[in-house]
Structure formats: structure tokens, C-alpha cells
């Protein structure tokens, strides 16, 4: 089949029939009000995500190590984060399909969005997106200085084209496809925990914040 011919014909049809030129408006940089970190956590919890605040990154790493999901005797842990060791190595990922064996995935979040509670991750920060998507529990570090208020400002800080894959992860994977019943843990992770560090007024000891109304599926 001649692709060039199809392209030429489609473009010619568009040129012949397109309407008169409409002007292109500029999109204002709409801000989002409030404290970005607080808004980020509030919205993340709305999406059934979990959040913990820390004074610094060391505290976050220390807390993470105490979590049952990081119990190396029982769990397969993949880490793309600096200073956190896993037990599931690159050699086991020569076939990416093995990513479904991972219990816990740890990685760096690059930006947070106050307006939605989203975390920007890329192929660089995740190393293998498949691991973040097929693992059961996802833990993401996030520097509170990298949390932006609104989505417009967030996109202004990103160069989409520099990333093979870039995504806003907003809570764990979810579905409402059966009678609109909200269920977390559809195809991707069952939980997403944001470890937000460089928060000066973080409580001591660290407190895991969850949405009390979050879906806690009994079946998984």
C-alpha cells in the first residue's frame, strides 16, 4: 500500500475543504491557589493515594526501610531510587515481562501537582515504567520543593520531548467500570505512597496519611 499517496491525498482534501483560518488564542498560566504541598496531599488522598511528610530525605529512607512492603525476606523489591537497595535486579529484567513478579517498586517522583495530587514520573526516574506499572505497591519520593501549584505551571517546567515516557501518576490504578463502584488496584499498582520530604513542619515520628474512605479491597 502506498503510504505517501494516502498522506498526499488526505492533506490535499484538507487543504481544499478546510474552513477560513481561526485565530490561535494564548493560554494564560492559570495559577492554583493554596499551599502546593498541602493541596498536593489533599488531592492525592482523594484519589486513594497515601502520603507521608518528612523533614528530610534521610528520614524518608529510614521510614521506608521499616515498612512491611520492604521486607526483603518476603518481598521482591525493585528500586530505581538513589540510596535505596532492592533485591530484584536488572539481570532479572532482561525480559521485561518478569516485572509482574515484583511486589514493591520504589522510584523518584520528579514533580508534584497541587491541583490534582499528581506525580510526574519519566522513563528516567522509573528506569523501567513496566516495573512501576506491574508491581503491587508503588513508593515515590518527592521533594516538596518540586511541588507546583497548578497544572499549567507544571507543564511549563517540563520538556515533554526530552522524555520517551512521561506520565502524571495520580493515586493507584483504579476503575469504576462495574456499576460505577470505585475500586483501587485495577491493572496497575494496588497502592501508591508519596514520600514527601523537605517539609519543615513534618510531624515526628512520621505519620502515614490515608483517605479514611479509601477503597480497601478485600479481594486482593
Amino acid at each position, binding site marked *: 500500500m502506498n503510504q505517501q499517496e494516502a498522506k498526499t491525498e488526505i492533506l490535499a482534501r484538507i487543504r481544499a475543504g478546510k474552513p477560513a483560518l481561526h485565530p490561535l488564542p494564548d493560554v494564560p498560566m492559570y495559577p492554583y491557589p493554596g499551599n502546593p504541598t498541602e493541596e498536593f496531599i489533599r488531592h492525592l488522598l482523594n484519589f486513594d493515594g497515601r502520603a507521608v511528610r518528612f523533614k528530610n530525605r534521610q528520614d524518608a529512607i529510614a521510614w521506608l526501610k521499616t515498612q512491611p512492603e520492604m521486607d526483603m525476606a518476603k518481598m521482591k523489591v525493585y528500586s530505581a531510587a538513589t540510596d535505596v537497595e532492592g533485591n530484584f535486579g536488572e539481570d532479572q529484567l532482561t525480559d521485561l515481562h518478569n516485572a509482574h513478579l515484583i511486589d514493591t517498586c520504589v522510584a523518584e517522583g520528579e514533580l508534584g501537582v497541587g491541583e490534582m495530587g499528581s506525580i510526574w514520573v519519566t522513563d528516567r526516574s522509573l528506569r523501567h515504567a513496566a516495573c512501576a506499572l506491574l508491581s503491587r505497591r508503588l513508593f515515590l519520593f518527592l521533594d516538596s520543593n518540586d511541588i507546583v501549584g497548578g497544572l499549567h505551571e507544571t507543564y511549563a517546567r517540563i520538556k515533554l520531548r526530552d522524555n520517551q515516557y512521561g506520565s502524571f501518576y495520580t493515586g493507584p490504578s483504579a476503575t*469504576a467500570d462495574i456499576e460505577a463502584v470505585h475500586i483501587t488496584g485495577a491493572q496497575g499498582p494496588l497502592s501508591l505512597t508519596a514520600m514527601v520530604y523537605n517539609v519543615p513542619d513534618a510531624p515526628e515520628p512520621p505519620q502515614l496519611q490515608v483517605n479514611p474512605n479509601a477503597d480497601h479491597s478485600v479481594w486482593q
Partner: protein
Amino acid sequence: MRQVNQVKLGEEFIKSRAHREMHDRCLWAARMRRDAVAASIPEWEEMRELASEIKLHTLSNLDFYLEQFTANAEANGIHVHWARNADEHNAIILEIFKSHGVKVVTKGKSMTMDECGMREFMAKHGIEINEADLGERIQQLDNQRPSHIVMPAIHKLRSDVADLFARKLGSDRDIDDPHYLNSVMRADMRKRYCQVDAGMSGVNFGIAETGGIVVCTNEGNADISANLPPLYVATMGLEKLIPRQSDLPLFIRLLSRSALGLDMTQYTSHYHHPRQGQEMHLIILDNGRSERLSSPDYWPVLKCIRCGACMNTCPVFRRTSGISYDAIYMGPIGIVLEPSYDLYKYARLPYSCTHCGSCGDVCPVKVPIPELVFYWRSVVVDHNDELFTHNAEETLAEPILESAGNLAKAEKVGLWALRHIPKSIAESGLNPWAEAHDDPEPPEETFRQYYNRVIKPESDKDTPKEQS
């Protein structure tokens, strides 16, 4: 070919009270969430106008943006293909799959691929396409089309899904807890992801400036399909472009809020290059779109970003379900899109509308759906002899409706009947309306009499032409 009779198909759905009430409740809840979240954004209405203008601009300069997009995407390492119609679309993908020896595919939701009948086509060539979105998978297993753009199985009760999964996936028929059903689906899909040769998805937005695509899902299914196998194939309708990266946040902020009343889709993913060791293909599909663009009255339909907000608010759709449209696109956007694919088959769809105008009010990109309904009705009337859209009631009503004087007489007869025909006859089985409605108390006078007496300005009273 058979003409789709949405009224008749809708009646079948309405018969089951449990389905009807669940469907209406779920969709109306989405509409109410949408209103609440829209009200929380002060610039919401301004954003709708901007999004509409950006789409109008892009469409009015579409050849330029398509070329810009393609040049950038190809420079990014994406293989770009062009398909004039569904057959070309399917043939291109089959060729890609054959050259890679693809047998098993997982696929994220794509209305555009549905439009091409891609799944059925691949099945004929021995390639197994597994829908990876829960709702879409339910519909695939049930051999039924999606009934909603973003909630494909929303017309089904949990017990329907339990029964289906018991038959197809061997789950426990007696457990209809959606959590359990989701876990059955998850376990089944995991098996498939482990052996998948290629992933597929649709496209929500293509960015001309950066040559990348944006795919929005809640389940993560499209992300797994794109990030796991060594081959990723996506299809984009050629109207999905936006000019600049800085336009994108506007649309992302509108999309999920309009669709489900949620601030964001859980996975809002941007693909600009193939993964190392992966091949990425993008098919740009025309299939009638360039023709729609050339129609002066109709081209704004191409602004649609497929959020489904018009369906959630539509009183006809909420009661009759998307299944009753027997079409790829359903609800308000469906009744103005489908006739452009097949005027005869879908000639009755533009009549499935109460003119409440709500779809136009909630559309995030201001597609003038209510006006397009009239556009299609006028097209249908122009072709009336070939299309047979009139039913017996309409033919009977024609002499009454075609003259204001006749209508005024009919009103008086109606009032007389309301006063004098006993309920035992008026509300008998002869009158199906009475199954769910009581006749009103007869008023003192007809509305026209009341209007002429109380409302009509003095200056108009000299012209008693249609006075009763």
C-alpha cells in the same frame, strides 16, 4: 441494510427497572460530580471557550499541524502511517503485526480502532486482541459494543458481569461484588500481559509542536500495553491534534473533570519516542474526517475530545443506555456523528433528542451539539423519500402540526377529551403513556386561551389570525 430504531431498542432497556435505575443513577452522579468540580475552578467557563477556540484554530489549519506533527514524530523515532479509511487502517496494522510475528496483543481503549472494526479484522487473521480496560473487556467477552465512551459496560448490573465472568473466566457466579469481579479480571489480564507480543491504544491528544501523543486512562492498562511489549501501535483520528505543549494543560484540566467529575485521570501519559529496543507505530486515520471538515455547518463536530460528558447529562441516553443506539458513538455526540458515517442506517438517531440543550452546556470544547441535531434533521428531511424516518404517529400528526389554526383546534379537542373521557378509557391499556403517568387535572382553558387573555401584548391583539 437495516435502519437503527433507537426508540425500539431503548424500550427494551427501559423494561428492566433495575438496569434503568442503576444506569440513570450512575450517570447522573457523574454529571453532579462534574458540576461540583467545575464550580471549584473559577476560570472554568473561560477555559471551555479557550479550548474551543484552540480546536477551531487547529482544524482551520489542520494540514499545517498534521505535517508539523508528522515531521516531529518521525524525528522522534515514531513510525507514522496514514490511512484514508478503515480498510487501509487495518491493513497497515496487519502488515506491522505480520512482520513482527505478533500473535497476542493487549489493547487500551480506542473508539477510533472500534470505528475500523480492527479487533474483528485481526481475529480473522488469527491475531488475538485482548481489551485491557475492564469495561471494554466485559463488552468484548459479551460480544457487545461499548455502551459509553468512558464507561463501556455501565449499562450492565454487577450480576450480569458475575454471570458473564462465570461463563467466560470461570469465576464464582454467586459472587457479584465488583471488587471480586475486578480481581478476576486482574488475574486473567496478568496472565495475558506475561505473553503479550504487542500493545495498542488510542490517542487522546497529539501535540504538533513536540511530535508526541497523550493517552489518558484510570486503570493503567494502556500504559502496561505500551511499556511492556517490544511493539506499540497507536491510532489517532486526525482531528486529535493540538498545536503546542502549552495548550495541553488546558485540555487535561477539562477532560477528566468533564468525563467523570474527577480532577485527573490516574494515568495521564505522554509518549514521544519508542523505548530502547521497542518499535512504535502511529496510524493517522481520516475515515471521513476530512470530508466533515469541508462542511461549513458541520465541521465544529471535529472539536470533540471524547469525554462523554454529553452522555452523562442526556435525559434520553441516561434512560435508554448506549446500547440502544446500536452504533460506535452513542448519546448526543453519537446522534450527530453516526449519520455522517451512514446516513440511511442512522437517519433516525437525530430524532432521539428532547432539545433540552444540556449536552451543549456541559461540552468542554463547546461542540454545538444541539445545533448539529437540527443540521442532521434537515439533511434527513431533504432525503426523506429514501430514508423512511417517519413513523405512523408522525404521519398522523402532520396535518395538525403544519398549520397553527389546526393546532389550536386540536388543543381545544384535547381539553374537551381530558374533561369528558372517563379515566377507565383514557388510562386503559389503549394508552401506553398511562402506564407510568396519570392524566393531569383539566385546566380552565388551553394555554393559548390563557396566553391571549393574559400575556399577549395589546399591540398584537389586532391580528387574531391564530386566535382560537
